[in-house]
């Protein structure tokens, strides 16, 4: 029955992409936080969270994502989400998360968003 969340990450320059797979509850949120903090401590400036393989994020999981966002903001970095289902997108907007972290349809757009090319 368990839908525990798996998290993988990869660095591209100073941006880390984190992919989630499964239900983001307290355990899933903590997995994401652990991976995100390891990437930030390893020098990542921005994080892109790709949630395309996640269909449910509960409010406990989102509260942990807010902690990750806080840490990114404290370091003057950037956090972006992509691959959200319409329900997760709606929930993030209800909670105001979208005011502080950009939401993009695709990973490529998210990468461009957190890493704009100089004019």
């Amino acid at each position, binding site marked *: 029955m368990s839908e525990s969340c798996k998290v993988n990450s990869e660095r591209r320059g100073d941006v880390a992409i984190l992919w989630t797979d499964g239900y983001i*509850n307290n355990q899933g949120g903590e997995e994401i936080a652990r991976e995100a903090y390891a990437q930030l401590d390893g020098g990542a400036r921005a994080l892109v969270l790709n949630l395309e393989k996640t269909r449910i994020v509960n409010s406990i999981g989102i*509260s942990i994502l807010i902690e990750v966002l806080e840490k990114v903001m404290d370091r003057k970095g950037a956090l972006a989400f992509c691959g959200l289902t319409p329900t997760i997108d709606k*929930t993030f907007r209800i909670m105001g998360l979208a005011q502080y972290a950009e939401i993009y349809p695709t990973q490529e757009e998210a990468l461009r968003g957190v890493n704009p090319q100089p004019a």
Partner: protein
Amino acid sequence: MSQGGFAPHGLAASGAREVSLTIPVAPEMEIVATAQAAALGEYLAMSRDKIDEVKLALVEACINAFEHADCSDEQLHLKFRLGGEPKGREWLEVEVLDKGKGFDSAKVEEPTIEKSFHSHRKRGWGLQIIKSLMDEVEITSGGGGTRILMRKYK
């Protein structure tokens, strides 16, 4: 205490079909409940996005009860109903009942993300999420427990 407003027609009069489920207060049991909601939503040919909204609202109702209700029987009692208005829209309704200590929803502070920043308390979003995702929500709570009744139209 209640909030929200259900249409005055009774469920029996609308020909609702009902499924009951009891789940223990235990980690991830809310996922068992969402499987039932998804099956009934699919039976109603509800869109996948609407089913996802019902599932998340149900998850929030369950974890609220798990965390705060202090249920005397360590169980949550769920009822899923399919029904429709005469010549009108069909709906899926979910009732979550706990036999816990109850709460006063009027005293629940509305959360904001700004209050969450640099605060130990980042929680308390459950009721807001439920009300935002479902079409109708009614909360009744007292010393004998809490009943959350929520409806989603197809």
